[in-house]
């Protein structure tokens, strides 16, 4: 019985989220565009997330290099360290870790902000003031997350590679130029382009889930916490699902 109820709830939620996302394409990206709010959200979502993304990216690159090195040394291929780290960061670890950090910071913040606006009737007040809350609050945030995450990922990848360079130099001496020449010689467009494209989907998922959870917040202040929390959990799971699907898709069309 519980399994049936859970399945029903899951399907109902999936349907509601799909309809909410569908509304973005049918109504959210039509004039009148909220350019000022969009730029403000790009600043808050993109620029303000950069220090966190940069820091985690740097540590990730450094630790990954330090962890990989002993294994490569045992096979006598430590000279391939920049190549391995570069491909791992650009193709998979960079986009996914950045997206998860982004979901934690931005998904929860959107869920809590809109949830709080919902329970204090600010969204209703906005509607009464002649503003379509979906366009003003949802469309701007979803566009901002979709545009900002790929940029943050590329910047995060660059910082992560710098972290990897530091990691390589802990045990040996390599010039910055030599390290990055090795990394970029091993990378092709088919490594970079699919990775960037999937971050667009990650960004869209984080934005739409955060907004959906906030917009449908109930039960007062307790509901705001639930919205923020479930926005992070659901968007993190979605990031992995999208990652799995895009890897399968890129394999299928021969981009790997």
């Amino acid at each position: 019985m519980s399994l049936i109820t859970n399945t029903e709830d899951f399907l109902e939620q999936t349907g509601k989220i799909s309809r909410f996302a569908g509304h973005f394409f049918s109504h959210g990206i039509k004039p009148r565009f909220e350019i000022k709010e969009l730029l403000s959200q790009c600043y808050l979502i993109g620029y303000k997330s950069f220090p966190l993304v940069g820091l985690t990216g740097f540590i990730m690159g450094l630790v990954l290099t330090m962890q990989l090195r002993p294994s490569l040394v045992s096979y006598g291929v430590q000279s391939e360290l920049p190549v391995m780290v570069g491909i791992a960061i650009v193709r998979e670890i960079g986009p996914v870790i950045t997206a998860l950090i982004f979901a934690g910071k931005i998904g929860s913040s959107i869920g809590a902000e809109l949830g709080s606006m919902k329970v204090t009737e600010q969204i209703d007040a906005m509607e009464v003031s002649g503003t379509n809350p979906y366009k003003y609050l949802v469309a701007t945030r979803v566009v901002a997350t979709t545009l900002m995450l790929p940029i943050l990922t590329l910047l995060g990848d660059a910082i992560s590679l710098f972290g990897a360079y530091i990691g390589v130099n802990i045990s040996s001496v390599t010039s910055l130029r030599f390290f990055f020449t090795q990394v970029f010689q091993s990378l092709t467009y088919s490594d970079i382009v699919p990775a960037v494209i999937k971050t667009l989907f990650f960004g869209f998922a984080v934005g739409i889930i955060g907004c959906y959870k906030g917009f449908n917040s109930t039960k007062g202040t307790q509901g705001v916490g639930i919205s923020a929390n479930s926005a992070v959990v659901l968007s993190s799971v979605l990031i992995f699902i999208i990652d799995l699907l895009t890897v399968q898709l890129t394999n299928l069309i021969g981009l790997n």
Partner: protein
Amino acid sequence: MPTVLNTPSDEKTGTVTSKPVIVIEHLYKQFGRNVVLEDFSLTVYKEENVVVLGKSGAGKSVLIKCVIGLLKPDKGNIMVLGENVTALNDDDLDRVRSKVGFLFQANALYDSMTVRENLEFPLRRHWINISQKEVEKMVKEALENVALLHTLDMMPSELSGGMLKRIALARTLILKPEIILYDEPTTGLDPVTAREIDQLILKLQKKYHTSSIIISHDMNCVKNIADRVILLLDGKCYADGSYDELEHSTDQKIKQFFE
């Protein structure tokens, strides 16, 4: 069968004129199995203050949210200034909303904006071509009306409950609406501040000649403001009359609100 003590008619006298501004006919609204409004009808006349009384959860807030188009009724018509809001598209609904103010129970001030930005928001949304000079003039006038001009650049979090209510009232009035819907304007305020808000509502109503539906549990507020009182019970208009008429009613269901 509702106890209708006084049916409003076109022969209404005093300051209230006979032109209807809100006409609600046979309104039905339910949430799941919970029937909130059932065949509810009400007419509000120009410059009239109608207070809607009722128990918590009786559907009073649902009623005014249907009037402004925030909720869609299941059945029935709501004519606001001659337009059926249940059948309007978004653009036409926005046009009607620019003539109807709504004071929310929890004030609903945008907490990420200053007082100035809160007041500018509805102006810039409804009147797209308004100049900055006009905006500033109207914002200052609205704040002077509620005696809070000094809060112009403050954040809502820096203000007291009474000040927030007055700022919310200023935001409601900034578009000079013909109708104002008040959702429990004095709830959560101390008696002195509540009385100040009542007097402010009356002062501004006289100044701008607005008509109002006021949801309230505060009997002092009802006594001070109401031209007419509606008792909403079981989704229906149970009683309709002046404050004095309802206060002296022998009907137990009505009396319990005045005890």
